[in-house]
């Protein structure tokens, strides 16, 4: 299905929901829940279980869908809610249990003689920790651009920033990741 057809279908579903058809909302959930869950998982540091956040996102969407003006696509709108819910969730978590983010960069490289699969897993876990250690504004642009694969314009609309700001954040995020994962990048080359 083309992007335009998808947007039209989403708008039709929103209209049906506004007229009181609950099944239209169920269809919206079916279509977007996987992407919302994937984004929440990435923004929250790959916890695996993101059921609560997904529920909160769709509760917020259910309440706010009547006010949805269609200025952006439904997918972008849902992603905006997801980003906001994840910010709230991280804020609550940090208040309850402060996390030492600096530890992410100090993890030792795995034992060279170990099993390759285990080594890969450890390497990837280290990469994920490095992403988590990034400040929120850098982590969000990395998750949305590199992991979620959104276009620059869409990320800018979603976060309410300009293209220049996005580029600056991405450059700085890459620099921080290079600083933390320099040895891995050299190995790969």
């Amino acid at each position, binding site marked *: 299905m083309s992007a335009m057809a998808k947007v039209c279908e989403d708008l039709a579903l929103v209209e049906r929901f506004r007229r009181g058809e*609950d099944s239209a909302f*169920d269809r919206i959930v079916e279509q977007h*829940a996987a992407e919302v869950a*994937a984004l929440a998982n990435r923004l929250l540091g790959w916890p*695996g279980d993101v059921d609560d956040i997904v*529920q909160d996102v769709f*509760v917020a969407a259910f*309440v706010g869908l009547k006010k949805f003006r269609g200025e952006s696509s439904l997918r972008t709108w849902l992603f905006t809610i997801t980003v906001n819910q994840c910010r709230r969730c991280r804020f609550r978590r940090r208040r309850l249990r402060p996390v030492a983010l600096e530890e992410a960069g100090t993890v030792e490289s795995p034992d060279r003689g170990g099993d390759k699969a285990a080594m890969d897993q450890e390497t990837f876990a280290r990469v994920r920790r490095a992403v988590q250690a990034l400040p929120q504004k850098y982590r969000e642009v990395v998750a949305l651009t590199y992991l979620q694969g959104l276009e620059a314009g869409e990320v800018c609309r979603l976060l309410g920033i300009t293209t220049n700001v996005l580029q600056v954040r991405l450059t700085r995020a890459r620099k921080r990741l290079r600083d933390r994962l320099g040895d891995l990048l050299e190995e790969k080359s």
Partner: protein
Amino acid sequence: MNQEKIERLLARADEAAGEPAFALATAAGIRRRIHRKRLVTMAVPTTVAAGIVLGATLWVVCLPTGRPQPQPQRIASLEEQVRQLQAQTEATLKLLQEVLETDRRERRLASLEAEFASIPDPIREIERQVDKAAFILVYQADKVYQELNESESAVRAYREVIQFFPTSPWAQVARERLARIEQQRIHDTKRQEGANLWDARNT
């Protein structure tokens, strides 16, 4: 180049983390959740307010005054305060009961709506059954005509289809079949007459 490497590494790390676990939310479930939330946000402040009123009343009652109050007046004031307190508590309880009752009704309504949505449309179901019956009749008549060459039985069956299911698309099929049988009959009769004429001349 470095950017590509970082992107590749991030993508592989993300892939290695696997798919997140989540349950699909439904509109009915979300409606219930919102209602519960609203109930809690209403009930908690009401209870707190009732507690504050109760506490304040008790404090006022127990507060030592400068001059001693005459005993009957004090009793009357205490009784009045207790009555007010009772009225407030009753009002709060009534409100809570009303909210709970509304919630129960809405949940029942949602479950009934879901049940109703799962039942297929009875009119469409009847139409489907009618269509099926007409099709079976036409199918059997076709078999009788083609395999057993029982044109009388087939014609009867086609006429029944036209009579009992006139609006069904199979009625149109039955009409076409009847027309074809009629043409076949005329053709056979003419051939028979020709053959008879031929025999009469030769003999």
